[in-house]
């Protein structure tokens, strides 16, 4: 299998509609016949990232690279950045507003869930410039 590259724009502003990019990626991974566990872990990471981009950064972009051995998801936004990454990684810590909470998010589980389901996770963030969350999910051979 050659490397497959996919790009999904994530629109900001509308949290009710968020999740479309993750749904599309999930369908593509299913069509490729990847293992269910891999699809589920990649989908959760992408979905949590997508929700974060909509809540905190008015959208962004997700680039997905699928190799025979791994899926790499790179989610980039031009939002406010994360002041304290260590704090943001703690379960229960959240700066999300009321709207996000009403929709069932903002429980401080987004980044911890991404870490839980990925094999590797990197956060590159700059205050006032934006954040890139990169996630690797290995595909068992």
């Amino acid at each position, binding site marked *: 299998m050659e490397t497959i590259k996919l790009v999904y724009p994530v629109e900001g502003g509308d949290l009710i509609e968020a999740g479309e990019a993750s749904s599309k990626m999930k369908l593509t991974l299913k069509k490729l016949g990847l293992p269910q566990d891999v699809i589920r872990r990649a989908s959760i990471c992408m979905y949590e990232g997508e929700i974060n981009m909509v809540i905190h950064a008015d959208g962004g972009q997700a680039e997905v690279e699928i190799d025979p051995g791994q899926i790499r998801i790179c989610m980039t936004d031009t939002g406010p950045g994360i002041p304290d990454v260590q704090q943001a990684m703690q379960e229960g810590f959240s700066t999300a507003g009321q709207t996000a909470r009403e929709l069932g998010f903002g429980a401080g589980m987004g980044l911890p869930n991404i870490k839980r*389901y990925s094999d590797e996770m990197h956060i590159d963030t700059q205050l006032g410039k934006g954040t890139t969350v990169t996630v690797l999910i290995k595909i068992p051979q």
Partner: protein
Amino acid sequence: MQLSQIRDILKARVLCGEDHLDREVFSACGSDFMSDVLAFVKNQALLLTGLVNPQVVRTADMVEMKCIVFVRGKVPSQEIVDLARERDIVVMTCAKRMYEACGLLYSKGLRGNCDGDD
């Protein structure tokens, strides 16, 4: 546990997926926090929630849940039901509150199968 049993135990009304009530679920999760649900990954699971919005369906879809039961008599909009139908997820609504709905299913043998369960 078959979805038809879940409908009967909860006296639930099926809003979509009437033809798929012979499907089975092996575990369940009750929550109004979608990230809690995303932290719960089991094969062939059921979601009970009092939250009504499209993200409930998207969340259930991400973790491949087979059925969503809206508790406390909540009835989702047609748009939400359609979203679930497209994703092949059965949707029900029941008048029972979350605690009672979960308790009834648990007592009939449908467990969470999470760490710490017997």
